[in-house]
């Protein structure tokens, strides 16, 4: 009898030790990147957030990543191999990874997936994105105030709602301070291609643009603007402060670190649940890089005021009256856009010229 209790006690001890051991096993977080970690933009920021996760949790976490993963068939393999390698949570950080992420998630129900900027979710797939259009409003304001040729060039990547929202938001706020402003939009069909981005920037500058906005990830447009002189730019995804104070006068910074730390913590605590978040300036996911001295004091003050209003929720970048490009009414006086319309935005606002490619 005594012996049996002893054995049972030992068994309990072994069990608890086992559980404790399982908890000591570091949580493995994987990251799939669309560009190289040194792109200085989008992927660079995601990787910075990965390093922040490592710093936050130390030995309790192990991170792995794979960079420059093409969107398409290769992505599915990369994600699967990461899951096979024992990852507990995998962040897939580009829109094009949506279907592959969902497909792999079906095969690995115990692994948590976080897909950036998509709209398909599952029990083990969350989505997250940032309200970049809030930052675009501030860019538009500064751009409209500072342009002398009244021509603003915009290097767009792909005709998806996220990019179209950015164009609309920047245009509306540029136009608000400068009714004569014109936007020229170039579709690069890439997220990261320094040569192509530089070509687009040069073409826009040759056509008279003295502000270049970009929705692509490399610093090549900044370098092209610097070379041309008298052109201002904004850092995209990352601060790109090496081009400050000119041509880069401010930037939109994606800060994923708090979100990633939060989600890895949730996996450790066992509280992770599928969700959909869309954070902006208020939550800190969208940061506005320092506005350089090249910007006149009054414009800078207005921009900071706009930022404060956006952060407090007092002002929404899409507040009516706003018409669509074809002249039909989109938002009535005082009406603000719903997230649903914004998420599926496939039209330009009134005043923009050209067509969205389709």
């Amino acid at each position: 009898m005594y012996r049996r209790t002893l054995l049972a006690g030992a068994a309990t001890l072994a069990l608890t030790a086992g559980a404790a051991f399982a908890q000591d096993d570091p949580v493995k977080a994987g990251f799939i990147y669309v560009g190289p970690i040194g792109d200085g933009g989008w992927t660079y920021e995601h990787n910075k957030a990965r390093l922040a996760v490592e710093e936050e949790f130390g030995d309790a976490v192990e991170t792995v990543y794979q960079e420059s993963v093409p969107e398409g068939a290769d992505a599915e393999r990369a994600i699967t191999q990461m899951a096979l390698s024992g990852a507990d949570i995998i962040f897939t950080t580009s829109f094009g990874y949506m279907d592959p992420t969902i497909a792999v998630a079906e095969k690995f129900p115990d692994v948590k997936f976080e897909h950036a900027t998509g709209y398909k979710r599952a029990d083990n797939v969350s989505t997250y994105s940032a309200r970049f259009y809030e930052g675009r409003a501030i860019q538009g304001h500064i751009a409209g105030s500072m342009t002398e040729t009244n021509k603003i060039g915009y290097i767009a990547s792909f005709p998806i709602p996220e990019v179209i929202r950015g164009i609309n938001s920047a245009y509306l706020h540029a136009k608000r301070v400068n009714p004569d402003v014109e936007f020229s939009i170039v579709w690069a069909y890439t997220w990261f291609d320094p040569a192509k981005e530089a070509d687009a920037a040069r073409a826009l500058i040759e056509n008279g643009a003295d502000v270049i906005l970009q929705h692509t990830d490399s610093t090549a447009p900044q370098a092209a603007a610097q070379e041309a002189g008298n052109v201002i730019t904004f850092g995209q995804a990352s601060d790109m402060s090496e081009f400050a104070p000119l041509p880069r006068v401010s930037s939109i910074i994606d800060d994923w670190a708090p979100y990633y730390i939060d989600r890895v913590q949730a996996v450790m605590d066992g509280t992770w649940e599928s969700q959909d978040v869309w954070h902006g300036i208020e939550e800190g996911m969208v940061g506005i890089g320092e506005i350089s001295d090249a910007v006149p004091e009054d414009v800078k003050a207005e921009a900071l005021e706009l930022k404060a209003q956006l952060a407090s929720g007092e002002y929404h970048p899409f507040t009516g009256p706003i018409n669509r490009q074809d002249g039909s009414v989109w938002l009535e006086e005082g009406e603000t856009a719903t997230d649903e319309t914004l998420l599926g935005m496939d039209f330009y606002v009134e005043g923009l010229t050209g067509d969205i490619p389709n």
Partner: protein
Amino acid sequence: MIRLEKRPQPSRTWTLASPILAVLLTMIVGGALFAALGAEPLTAIRTIFWDPLFNPQFASYSRPQLLVKAGPLILIAIGLSLGFRAGIWNIGAEGQYIMGAICGAGAGLAFYPSDSALIFPLMILAGALGGWAWAMIPALLKVRFGTNEILVSLMLVYVAESILASVASGLLRNPEGMGFPGSRNFRDWDAVANTEIIANTGMHFGVLTAFIAVIAAYVLLARHIQGFNIRLSGEAPRAARFSGVNPAAVIVFCLGIAGALAGLAGLFEVTGPAGQISIDFNSGYGFTAIIVAFLGRLHPVGILLAGLLMALTYIGGELAQLMLGLPGAAIQLFQGMLLFFLLGVDVFTNYRVRLNLGATA
């Protein structure tokens, strides 16, 4: 002094030995590169060449993936090799691959959501035709106006990419995709999904077609008069003309076959591994296949092996990134080395090395 002396005929031994030597040299120099990056060189080499096949954790998944990755490369390279043998330089397989995928996918989507058994064969046909038609542009321009097929076929790649961008965000866009570019996912449509023929082998219809193409090309080149004409046109164009080979027919035939096979590869890719027409589903197979064709010495069996080797370096390279944290660029460098050494070692196929020690020159 070291001197190179041209061989009267390319050495058979070296033709076979040079790829192996090139792989060994790549391993040595690549190992040094990995060591310089702080990775254990032997571990890195093992991760790239051994783990995808035999690592207990990954192999059951990555082994079938070898076929998935190699399939389109082999299929396209076989088509290209016929032209290359005849001295016809089709550099635009990427464009033919894209157009095949678009035409095939379009033909299928026109009948969505029918579950007729005829749709998939129709798509295959349309895919082959799309690639064929795209290759006919450089072929006919060359035959009719003597244009350079290298330039025309290459430029048409960029045209095809623009068409792809346009249809992905317009004509073929998924109406339920909330405005995002990209077609419907064919893998959710059972009638046309190009799934594995045997589960967990990676063997889908595209891979099967690639194997058939290898055999057909072998028979064509070794046994058929058209194969002889192709070889003759490349090796001795004047002799070919004297013996009554019509150069125009060879051009149209070689580019047509290459285009059709590339188109098929594209169709099988979008209905299978890629799943949908998206702006960048193509992943450069058409260009990589050129490397595969030369790595395989333009010989069908060689291409089969070269395609598998190329796939191995891709998948092994991904594992090395994941497991050892090697940068992606290092893996690309490693793959580039393979081609570099192959071309370098090729000198021994056509030349003999002579050592003249103190002799009068």
